[in-house]
């Protein structure tokens, strides 16, 4: 899933300052799981903004709230056509993709990012999320015992550990495990150390020309048979 953190309240207050009627829009998928922008975070943020406004003594905004199943899917944004008619701005608690999907759907509506989208990762324990995938477009987890060196090694190097590892930890962050020590240990356990002995050539960055697009192969095949 995509992991994000809500922006500091003062940043959000600054962003919404030019607008009167603010729709706070949550996302029911990743942002709900990482506690950054689901239904309960939307309600909490609305209360916080209202409280801040009351304390400041200046009432400039009215707030409404709504949460869609997924902001990154046009199908779930149809509801906005109606809701947007009554507001001046949408404060999205979706990830960066959600914000852009709304901007594409509503050409005349300003949309603000309420979270900082951080990475693709997993829940490590309650309230802790760890990055696990860099979306490099060329998955090599087969050769690295299911542990990604591109994401989990701070240098993203492919041919084994650098010399900065100490006590199995990374030179860049002494609390972070060295990805290559983890890979070595797991390959050894799986009796696949020969995979680490192989030479891996430099990455092909053409695998990630930005922005990327994926076309469903099923549709293409169907299209071909139709033609």
């Amino acid at each position, binding site marked *: 899933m995509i992991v994000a953190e809500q922006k500091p309240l003062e940043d959000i207050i600054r962003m919404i300052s030019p607008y009167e009627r603010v729709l706070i829009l949550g996302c029911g998928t990743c942002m709900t799981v990482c506690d950054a922008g689901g239904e309960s975070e939307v309600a909490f943020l609305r209360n916080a903004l209202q409280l801040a406004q009351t304390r400041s003594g200046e009432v400039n905004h009215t707030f409404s709230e709504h949460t869609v199943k997924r902001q990154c899917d046009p199908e779930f944004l149809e509801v906005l056509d109606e809701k947007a008619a009554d507001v001046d701005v949408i404060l999205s608690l979706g990830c960066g993709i959600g914000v852009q999907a709304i901007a594409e759907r509503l050409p005349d509506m300003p949309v603000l990012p309420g979270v900082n989208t951080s990475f693709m990762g997993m829940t490590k324990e309650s309230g802790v999320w760890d990055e696990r995938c860099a979306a490099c477009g060329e998955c090599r987890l087969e050769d690295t015992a299911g542990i990604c060196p591109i994401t989990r090694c701070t240098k993203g190097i492919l041919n084994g*550990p*650098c*010399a900065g590892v100490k006590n199995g930890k990374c030179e860049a962050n002494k609390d972070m495990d060295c990805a290559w020590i983890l890979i070595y240990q797991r390959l050894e356990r799986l009796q696949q150390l020969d995979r680490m*002995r192989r030479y891996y050539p*430099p990455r092909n960055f053409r695998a990630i020309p930005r922005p990327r697009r994926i076309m469903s192969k099923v549709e293409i095949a169907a299209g071909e048979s139709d033609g």
Partner: protein
Amino acid sequence: MANSLFEEKLGSNDFLVTTEVGPPKSVDVTETIHHIKLLKDKVDAINITDHQSSVMRFPSIGGCLLVKELDGEPILQMTCRDRNRLALQAELLLAYSRGITNVLCLTGDSVDVGDHKDAKPVFDLDSVQLLRMIRTLESGVDMGGNELGAAPKFCIGTSVHPEADFIEPQLIKFDKKVAAGAQFFQTQGIFDLASLRRFMQYASQFDVKILAGIIVLSSAGMARYMNKNVPGIIIGQSLIDEMATVEKGKGLEKGIEIAARFIKTIKEENLCHGVHIMAVGNESIVPDILEAAELVRASR
């Protein structure tokens, strides 16, 4: 014919001595020139470091040009941290055209340990890939498969970490570096000769030259600081205790004595093929170490 004076020495049975000079964070290279002049005839080659510890400085290639101007033998340290494959290849073309033909291929320290922590870390290549890239250039083509008008020839080396606490993955990487064409290794700092002995039992099966890295300590505090902050450095307590026995201000003398003792033992026991002395900011004391280690030679 050898590609450099240093490569010629690698082919001999001489006990090799290299050292390093760190360029300044300045446009004033007076002190660097002074260090190069002081050392160039006392060692087999001088490494010029490449923004060591990820601290921005005068570049390695610039320092190597100074060494050439002063008729010394430079080793260009080249890390993958700051340049992508285009920039690395271009710099190698420049180096060769100016007679700089020894290259030490390194992955490079993390940006996070340096003085520009917000910088974009590049690492388009790693050290093994850099070694192979140089061999590719030598074959007359670049990494894009395009022909070079004229091809360079280099003498290439890299590093290895015999004191790593997880040694097996480091040895796998060592094998890959040998297979990639590394001719010499300057090891990370050696603080325990037992680990060097163990490493050489393994490494001696390969046709490469190993120069043991000798880091000169200047105080017990510096040793503790390095343990804490310098990537990969592991200094044992007995060495720190020995540094702590001397009175304030005499630390560097003790450091010189320890470095010379290590070097003498390595040479007498024929543990490896030479030493690489890293004085970390105290370049001017390298001649004292050589004297104490009885390595003073007639000018080359």
